[in-house]
C-alpha cells in the first residue's frame, strides 16, 4: 500500500538535485506528478525499468524531477522517442508526459499514429487548455470563446477533444480525469500503465496564471472548483468533451479494449522473416 507522501517523495524525486521546480505555486502539474508517483508505487515497478519522456513546455519539465530514466525531448515529439525506446528495450515501462499543445498541435500527428499503432506506451496529457510555458497563447484545446494572449478578443477556433480523439485513433485504453479528482487520477494512471497497448490519460489541469487569469478564474481554488462542478462521471454511452467554459464534461474510462500490441505483432514478423 502507498506509503506516506513524504516517504514517497524521497523515494522517487531527485530531491538533492533539482528543487525548487519551475512550476508556479498552485500549478496542477504537481498533482499530476503526485498521482504518477503513487500509481508507480502501487504497481511496484523498479525505477530502473521506468522511462519518463516528455516534450517541451511546463509539462515537459516533469522528468527533470523524478529518479527514473528521463528524457526531455523536442516539442511534440515525446511519443516518437518513446516509440524507439520501447521497441529497442520492450522490458522498459515507457511513459510520455505531454502538454495539450505539445501532444495535439505540433505533436498531433505523432499522437494519432501512436494510438493507431498500439505500441505499449502510456501517454499522460496534461490539458491546461493553454500554452503555459510560452505565456498563455491559444492552444488546440482552448475553448471556443475563451481569451488568451493570441485570442485577445475571443477564441474563434474549436477545441480538440483529446480523449475522444485517442479513442477514434485506436488507443487501447483511454481515460480522462482532473487534478481536482486526484484519488481517481492515481487509479486511471495505474490502469493506463498496466494496460498492454497504447494508453492515454488526459488530465484537465489548472493553469490559473496563463489561462485562468484571462478567463475569470485567476487562482487555483477557483479553477479546481470549476473542475469539481463541471466534471461528471461517465456512465454508459457517449462522453462529453471539455470544449466549453460553460458546459459539463465527462471523466472516467472512455475506452478499454484488448487487442495485440505492436510488439506482440512484431514478434510474429520476426518469425515469418526467419521462415519459421
Amino acid at each position, binding site marked *: 500500500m502507498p506509503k506516506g507522501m513524504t516517504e514517497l517523495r524521497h523515494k522517487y524525486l531527485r530531491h538533492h538535485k533539482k528543487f525548487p521546480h519551475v512550476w508556479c505555486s498552485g500549478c496542477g502539474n504537481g498533482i499530476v506528478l503526485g498521482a504518477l508517483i503513487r500509481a508507480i508505487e502501487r504497481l511496484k515497478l523498479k525505477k*530502473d525499468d521506468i522511462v519518463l519522456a516528455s516534450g517541451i513546455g511546463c509539462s515537459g519539465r516533469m522528468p527533470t524531477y523524478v529518479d527514473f530514466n528521463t528524457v526531455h525531448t523536442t516539442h511534440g515529439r515525446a511519443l516518437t522517442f518513446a516509440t524507439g*525506446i520501447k521497441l529497442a528495450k520492450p522490458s522498459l515501462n515507457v511513459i510520455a508526459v505531454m502538454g495539450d499543445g505539445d501532444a495535439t498541435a505540433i505533436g498531433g500527428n505523432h499522437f494519432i499514429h501512436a494510438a493507431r499503432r498500439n505500441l505499449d506506451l502510456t501517454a499522460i496529457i496534461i490539458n491546461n487548455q493553454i500554452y503555459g510555458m510560452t505565456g498563455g497563447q491559444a492552444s488546440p484545446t482552448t475553448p471556443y470563446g475563451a481569451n488568451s494572449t493570441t485570442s485577445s478578443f475571443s477564441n474563434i477556433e474549436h477545441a480538440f477533444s483529446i480523449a475522444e480523439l485517442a479513442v477514434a485513433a485506436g488507443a487501447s485504453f483511454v481515460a480522462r480525469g482532473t487534478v481536482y479528482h486526484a484519488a481517481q487520477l492515481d487509479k486511471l494512471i495505474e490502469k493506463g500503465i498496466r494496460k498492454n497497448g497504447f494508453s492515454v490519460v488526459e488530465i484537465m489541469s489548472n493553469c490559473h496564471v496563463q489561462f485562468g487569469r484571462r478567463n475569470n478564474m485567476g487562482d487555483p481554488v477557483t479553477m479546481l472548483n470549476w473542475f469539481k462542478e463541471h466534471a461528471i462521471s461517465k456512465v454508459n454511452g457517449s462522453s462529453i468533451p471539455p470544449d466549453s467554459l460553460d458546459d459539463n464534461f465527462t471523466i472516467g474510462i472512455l475506452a478499454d479494449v484488448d487487442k495485440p500490441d505492436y510488439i506482440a505483432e512484431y514478434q510474429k514478423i520476426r518469425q515469418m522473416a526467419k521462415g519459421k
Partner: protein
Amino acid sequence: MVPELNGKKLLLQGNEAMVEGAIAAGCRFYAGYPITPASEISERMSYRLPQVDGTFIQMEDEISSLGAVIGASLAGVKSMTATSGPGFSLMQENLGYACMTEVPCVIVNVMRGGPSTGLPTSPAQGDVMQARWGTHGDHPIIVLSVASVSECFSIIVTAFNLSEKYRVPVIVLSDEVVAHSRETFTIPPADSIEVVDRIAPNVPPEWYKPYEDNSRGVPTMSSMGDGYRHHVTGLVHDADGFPTDKPEDIEAFTKRQFKKITNGFFEIQITKKFNLEDAEIVVIAYGSVARSARHAVAMARAQGIKAGLIQLVTIFPFPKNTVVNVMRQCKAVLVPEMNMGQISREVKRVNPGTTEVFKYNRIDGQLITPQEIFEEIQKI
C-alpha cells in the same frame, strides 16, 4: 531459414548495400518514411532486420523517424534512418537534439535535386552545406559520402563506428546515381569487419556523470534500463545532464563538443588519393562525381597531362590538411559538383596560396561524366 550473406557475391544496388553494411556494423533498429531515391533502404531493412532480431518501423514522417532512432539508441541499440532532401529538412530539429545529447545514430541522405520537392528521380549534391549546418546552433557533426556500391557497404560501417566512438550523429550523403547503380559486390566475412561500440560506464551508478569530460572529450554512455538512471535533455546541460544557465558550464559544454571531434581529426578525415605524387592539376570530388573523376584523371594521364584526384570520403570536418598539402604542390584544382559550388567554397577557403581553383557545376539533374571532367582538365 535466414540466408548467410557474408562471403557471398551479390548483385546489389547502392541502397541495398547500405542495409547490409548497417547490419554488419551492428545496426538493429531502423525507422523511416518512404521517399525516392532512398526507399529501397527502408524496403530492404523491413525484411532484413527482423531476420536478425532487429526492428524496422515505418513512421508517420521523418521527424518521428529520427525521434525513434534517437530513442532506440538511448536504449542501447545501434540505429539509423535514411531519407532524401525533403525528409532531411524535416529531420533537422531532431538532428540538433542528437548533437546536443550526444546520441550515436546514422542518417543517410540520398540526395536528389532541390530545394523543395525538386527533382525526385535525378541526382544532385545540393545538400552538402545543409548536412553541415542544417540544424540551428553551433554543433559538431560528421558528414561522409559514398561513390560506389562497395563504399555504400564499407562507409556505412565507418559511419556507425565513428558515431559510436565520438557520440555524434553521422550523416552519409549518397546520391541518386550511387543509390540506384547495381554492381557485383562480395559481402566481406563478418570477422574481417571492424565494429566499434560506445563505451559503457564502469563506475558505480551513483558516481556516474553522463556528460563528464575526459581525455577524449567523449563521455561514457549507459543504456536506459541498465541501472545508470539519468536525465537527457536538449537544453544545454551540465556534467550531470541537468539544464544549466551558468556561463562557465555552457562554454565548457560547447567547447567539449568541438574538442572531441578535433581530437579525432586524424581518423575522422578520410580521403582517397589517386595519382597525386607529381600531379599538376588536381581534381577534388566526392560521391558519384568522384568516380567519374577517377576515369577522367586516367584519360588525362593517357594524354600526358599530370592529373590527380582527391576523393573526399569525409566532407565534414573538411579534410583541410590533406587538401592544403596537395594545393601547396599543384598548380590548379578543379572541383566538379552537382550543385552551384558548395565544396569549391571550402577549397577556396583553405587555399594556402595562389593555387587556382576552378569549378565545374551541373545543376540540371544530369550526372557528371568522365568525358566532361576530362574536357575541363584539358581547358586548364
